C-alpha cells in the first residue's frame, strides 16, 4: 500500500506547476460607510521577469511606460489575466479599471482598481491571492499593507499551490 501511496504522491507532484514569476502584492482598501468602495492594487513583478517584460514593453527604450505602451500592455498582457482571475479571488463579482504600468527600479509595476459590483461590508471581507497553476507566486507580506483598517494575513494552503488570504476585521 505504501508503494501505491508514494507512487501517487510523486506522480501527482509532477502535475503541478512551480513558480517562475514572483509578484509582490500591495493592496489598499478604499471604504465608504463600512462598505468596500474599491480595492487599489499594486503589483511589483520580480526583477528577472521584469527584465524580460521591459525588453518588450519599453519599446522606445526611454526607461518608462508611455501611454501607447501602457495600452499595449493592457491589451496584450493584463487583460489576458482575466482568465486567471487576476490571481485575486474575491467573494463577489467585480470590475477592473484604471490600469497603469510603470517601471520602478528595473521592476514592472502594475496598478489597477478592483470595484465590487454589489455592496459588500468591509468587516470579514476576504481577498485570496494565488495562481492555481502556480506558475506565478503571489507574495503578500504584512509590511505591504500600509493602511490602518484592522486585518490579518493568513497563508493559503491550496492542494496544489500556495497563496495568501487578506481578511479585514
Amino acid at each position, binding site marked *: 500500500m*505504501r*508503494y*501505491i501511496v*508514494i*507512487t*501517487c*504522491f*510523486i*506522480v501527482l*507532484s*509532477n*502535475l*503541478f*506547476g*512551480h*513558480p*517562475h514569476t*514572483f509578484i509582490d502584492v500591495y493592496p489598499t482598501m478604499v471604504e465608504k460607510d463600512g462598505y468596500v468602495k474599491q480595492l487599489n492594487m499594486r503589483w511589483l513583478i*520580480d*526583477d*528577472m*521577469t521584469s*527584465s*524580460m*517584460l521591459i*525588453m*518588450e514593453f519599453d*519599446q522606445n527604450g526611454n526607461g518608462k511606460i508611455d501611454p501607447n505602451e501602457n495600452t499595449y500592455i493592457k491589451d*496584450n498582457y493584463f487583460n489576458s489575466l482575466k482568465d486567471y482571475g487576476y490571481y485575486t479571488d474575491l467573494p463577489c463579482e467585480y470590475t477592473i479599471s484604471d490600469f497603469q504600468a510603470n517601471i520602478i527600479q*528595473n521592476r514592472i509595476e502594475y496598478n489597477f482598481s478592483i470595484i465590487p459590483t454589489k455592496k459588500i461590508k468591509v468587516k470579514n471581507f476576504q481577498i485570496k491571492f494565488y495562481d492555481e497553476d*502556480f506558475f506565478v*507566486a503571489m*507574495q503578500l507580506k504584512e509590511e505591504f499593507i500600509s493602511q490602518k483598517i484592522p486585518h490579518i494575513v493568513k*497563508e493559503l*494552503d*491550496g*492542494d496544489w*499551490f*500556495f497563496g495568501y488570504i487578506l481578511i479585514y476585521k
Partner: protein
Amino acid sequence: MEFYNTIIKQLTVWQYSLNSFISNHIRAIDDDSSITMSLTVLGIAFLYGLIHAAGPGHGKAIVGLYFSGKSSNNKKNYSQAFEMGYLIAIVHTISALITTFSLYLIIKTMFYKHFRDTYDSIVQISSVMIIIVGIYIIYEAYKNKKEQENIDDNIKSKSKYAVAISAAIVPCPGVMTITLFSIIQKKYILGVLSAIAMSIGMGLTISLAGILGILFHKQTSKFTKNIGYILQMFSGVIIILLGLFLIKVL
C-alpha cells in the same frame, strides 16, 4: 497534504529570496569585482537549482517510479540513479539554453509571450513521449512476466534514455529566466555558467528521487516480490495517465 504544503511553501519562500539575490548580484557585477561576485552568483545558482528541482516537476516522479522497480542490493543501481538524474538535468538545461538563445536571437520582441507559447508546445511533445515511456514499461513488465525473468534486472538501458529524455525535454523556465536575465545584462558567459551551476544542483535533487525509489523498493521488497508485475504495470499506467494529464486529454 499539510506536510506537502509546508514543503511547497518553504521552497517558494527560498526561491523568492534566491531569485532576488541572483538578479541583484548579476546586475551589480562589473569588471572590477567580477570574480568574487561571479563565484557567489554561481554558488547561489547551484543552490537555486537544488531547491528549484525539489519543487514539483523536473522529472523526479518519473525517475522515482523508474527506480522503484530496481533492487537496492545491486549497487550499480545507485550510480544509475545519479547517471539518469544528471542526464535529465543536462538535457533540461541544454533544452532551456537552446530555447532561450533561439527565441532571443530570432524574436527579441514579444519574448515573454513566445516563452510561454514555446513552453506549452514542448510540454505537449514531452507528454507524448511520457505516454510512450508508460507503454514501454507496461510492455517490458508483460514481456518479463512471460519470460519468467526478474523485473529488476531486465529494463534495458535504452529505456533509461527514453525515460530521461521524455522527462527532460521540457526546458526549465528557471534556467531560461536566469540565462535571459544575464543576456539582457550583457553577461553572456555568466548566464551560461549560471545555467550549468543550476543544472548541477538540479541533477543532484533529481538523482535523489531515484535513490528514494531504490530505497523504497528495499523497504517493500517482500511485498513487491509477490506482486511486482502488477506494480510494474501500475507504474506504467500511472505514467501514461501523467502524460495524458500533461497533454490535457484528461
